């Protein structure tokens, strides 16, 4: 049975509804009312079996190593799930007033402080519901900053290695993206950059470490060039896991950053969200942060809506509180030393895997990596591709790396083991990768036809896009 609708039959649903306190007349005129629904009619047992079965068709961090580069698929501590299930957090209404929500406000206020301590940024807004949302807020701040200064700057520079959300966020603000090339060693081409800087450049967005898993060796120089040009420097902090506790993003010269709580701070990714992407700024830019802010005074914590230069509101309420809460708990369980250990172990694990796989697969940039590294399918025999390798990994109980990203490395395989994998797991992964390499040479079809042991075989995405079927029809 594929979808829940297939279990549907009139009369199967025997759910009992609560009873009304009295006989009450309906007050909505007939003309507004529908005459019944066409959702589904199934039993509770059907539901439990169906979604249990679906869950078992999924791969998650709890089922195995998930080296999906740029996504930081680390272990999500169970205690944080329990904390986020406490009724006093689940049921608190965002409009109940400051006095009744001191606990929630405290969590948000303190997490904001922790993020400042961790990144060096003066202040954060926790409103962004994901990384891209944080970027959008960041670009809005950039735009507003120059508007207020009366400068007409409409260009945002973005390296060719950037994540797609960077240019997309810029476009949503009506600004223009200009792409900065990288050197063969994976740094920003600093000469090209220098040549692009003029009075139209509002800012540059840079992911640090970048999406090749490398720390840009010219980063302080880049920051200098930008600031000299009167431009702002935006840091995409999605890869913070590599440097958390080891350095502060502010020390790299960033004026604005966002961080992904659903990566570095271990909140589960939920099969696509919810996440949380706080945006943090330097002291000079604080006044532009989205409203509301959270303030503390003798009476306790309060929401502050009044911020005349703010870019405005960007969320129905205050952001993804229950995700924020998990990140808060995570930081409290690790402390400063623990966070430093995160980045050091993440970097150690990645370099270990790289050192053991570089002879088997093409390593486009041969440098010490940070928390992740990129291999490619260049020079593989028998027409085997990155996609094939990813699929074959699934057969062995590993998730695939991020594939074909970053775009500047053709056939990229971006591998991020994270710090929560043990050496045994890394070795198992490495052995499987080496085994696949052997298969590519000796029995390429085994790789090209993979996966064979997954709940479904290779899925036809082409037909799906060509003749889209986007909802179930009986």
């Amino acid at each position, binding site marked *: 049975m594929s979808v829940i609708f297939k279990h549907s039959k009139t009369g199967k649903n025997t759910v009992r509804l609560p009873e*009304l306190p009295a006989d*009450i007349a309906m007050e*909505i005129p007939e003309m507004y*009312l*529908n005459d019944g*629904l066409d*959702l*589904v009619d199934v039993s509770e047992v059907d539901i439990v079996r169906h*979604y*249990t079965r*679906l*869950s078992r*068709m*999924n791969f998650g961090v709890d*089922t195995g190593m998930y080296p999906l580069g740029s996504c930081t698929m680390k272990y999500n501590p169970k205690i944080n799930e329990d904390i986020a299930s406490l009724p*006093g*957090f689940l*049921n608190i*209404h*965002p409009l109940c007033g400051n006095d*009744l929500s001191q*606990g929630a406000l405290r*969590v948000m206020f303190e997490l904001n402080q*922790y993020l400042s301590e*961790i990144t060096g940024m003066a202040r954060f807004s926790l409103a962004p519901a994901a990384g*891209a949302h944080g*970027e959008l807020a960041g670009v*809005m701040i950039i735009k507003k900053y120059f508007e207020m200064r009366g400068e007409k700057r409409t260009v945002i520079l973005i390296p060719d290695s950037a994540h*797609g959300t960077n240019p997309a966020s810029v476009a*949503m603000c009506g600004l223009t*993206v200009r792409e900065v090339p990288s050197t063969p060693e994976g740094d920003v081409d600093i000469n090209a950059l220098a040549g692009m800087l003029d009075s139209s450049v509002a800012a540059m967005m840079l992911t640090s470490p970048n999406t090749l898993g490398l*720390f840009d060796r010219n980063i*302080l120089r880049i920051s200098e060039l930008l600031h000299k040009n009167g431009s702002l420097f935006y840091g995409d902090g999605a890869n913070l896991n590599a440097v958390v506790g080891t350095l502060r993003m502010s020390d790299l010269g960033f004026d604005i950053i966002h961080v992904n709580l659903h990566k570095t701070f271990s909140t589960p990714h939920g*099969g*696509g*969200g*919810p996440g949380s992407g706080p945006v943090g700024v330097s002291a000079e830019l604080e006044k532009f942060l989205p409203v509301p802010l959270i303030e503390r005074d003798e009476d306790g914590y309060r929401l502050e809506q009044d911020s005349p230069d703010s870019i*405005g509101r*960007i*969320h*129905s*309420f205050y952001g993804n*509180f229950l995700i924020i809460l998990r990140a808060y708990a995570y930081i409290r369980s690790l*402390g400063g030393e623990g966070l*430093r*250990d995160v980045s050091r172990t993440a*970097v*150690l694990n990645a370099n*270990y895997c*790289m050192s053991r796989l570089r002879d088997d697969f093409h390593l486009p940039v041969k440098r*010490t990596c940070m928390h992740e590294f990129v291999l490619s399918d260049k020079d593989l025999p028998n027409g085997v591709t990155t996609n094939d390798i990813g*699929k074959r990994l699934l057969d062995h109980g590993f998730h695939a790396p991020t594939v074909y990203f970053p775009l500047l490395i053709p056939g990229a395989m971006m591998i991020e083991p994270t710090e*929560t994998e*043990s*050496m045994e797991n890394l070795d198992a992964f490495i052995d499987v990768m080496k085994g696949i390499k052997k298969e590519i040479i000796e029995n390429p079809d085994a790789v090209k036809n993979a996966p064979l042991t997954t709940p*479904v075989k*290779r*899925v036809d*995405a082409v037909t799906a896009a060509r003749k889209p079927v986007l*909802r179930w029809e009986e």
Partner: protein
Amino acid sequence: MYTSITESDKKSMLKSIGAGSVDELFADIPASILLKKPLDLPAALSEMALFEHMKSVERSNAAPISLLGAGAYRHYIPAVVNHLAGRSEFYTAYTPYQPEVSQGTLTAIFEFQTMMCRLTGLDVANASMYDGATALAESIIMALRSNNRKKVVVSDAVHPNYREVIMTYCGAAGYECVFVASSGGVTAAADIERAIDSSTGAVAVQNPNFFGCIEDIAAVAEVAHAHNAAAIMSVLEPHSLALLKKPGALGIDIVCGEAQGFGNPIGFGGPMLGFIAAKNDYMRKIPGRLVGKTTDDDGREAYVLTLQTREQHIRRDRATSNICTNEGLCALRAVIYLSYYGNKLRDLALYNHKNAVYVKNLLIGKGFTPVFTSPFFNEFVVHFDNMASVYEKFRRNGVVPGLLLGDYYPELDDCLLVSATECLGTGEIEHMMNILEKI
């Protein structure tokens, strides 16, 4: 604490790497910026101490009887929702990029899309948006991009926070928002029409609107279409869809909003569950993820992310939106919730309405006056002289009786927006009435 590389592991790993120490791995970072001492954060806690700490923080939130709605609704969450959405294969997965090991997430999202289409009477629904406000903002942008116009006409009976968010988004994107005053708690089509000009590409209302009143959305759609503008309806209390006529059938082009009420807790306002459903014309313009039906190599039914050329990771600065991570797990919760109630969701919606009517009548009995006469779903506005003091009295007795509207609409001073769902029990209602007794 969640790492498990032992000292001896570290040694052999460094050897394989060819590095003398972990510090060496950070050699690309200028020494000047490497932190010399650990971050100044509270000391690490044991799990037990952490849980105690968090429970003490939790207790500093109050747990009042609440009649607050206004975009975040308290509905009973059937036990199956937590149990099934709590299966770790669901919540520890990433976005389903590898369909062969993600059929669970993909199938559930496909079902969610289907259910949202069936509830709205529209053709395409996406896999979720951040929340109702950004769903409305992105719907407006989608509509204006589609017909290449610059202006959206919006009812002022749209949630004030939502109006602020669309101003933020439209402002940044270079679009103009024109607000139309409601009258008598609803938005007159004639007033909308007056605000429309040739640059108007979209009209947006909320239904039930911020006052809980049911709008005449057929008339709104008609007037929008008369000017070749898209008709957008935002819905914040999704249970209303189960009782009212399908907006798609009444001519609405885009229904967007908030589906938190379907199986998701309020959680201080987040995560919420934004969604967009639209007519087929928008299929390639809709923001966010879409799951499509297809087959695998063996010809078996399978699901996959599709029409990805709309999205940022392919289209970059020409994508329909920048959204990447969305609210997938909330959508999963919603689809389990909707399966649980199934077609009986209409009965539940009716229960909500009647419970609200019941509370309203009791309040009238205590001297409150209803402010609007238009029909409402499960939320309504009442007036009381010197409302602020009654409100404080309620709060001191553990009840938040609703939302004071004076801050949002000065003309509605002394007015209270009251929401009653199935969760508001008779005991709670009695307690409220007893408080009023003493006034």
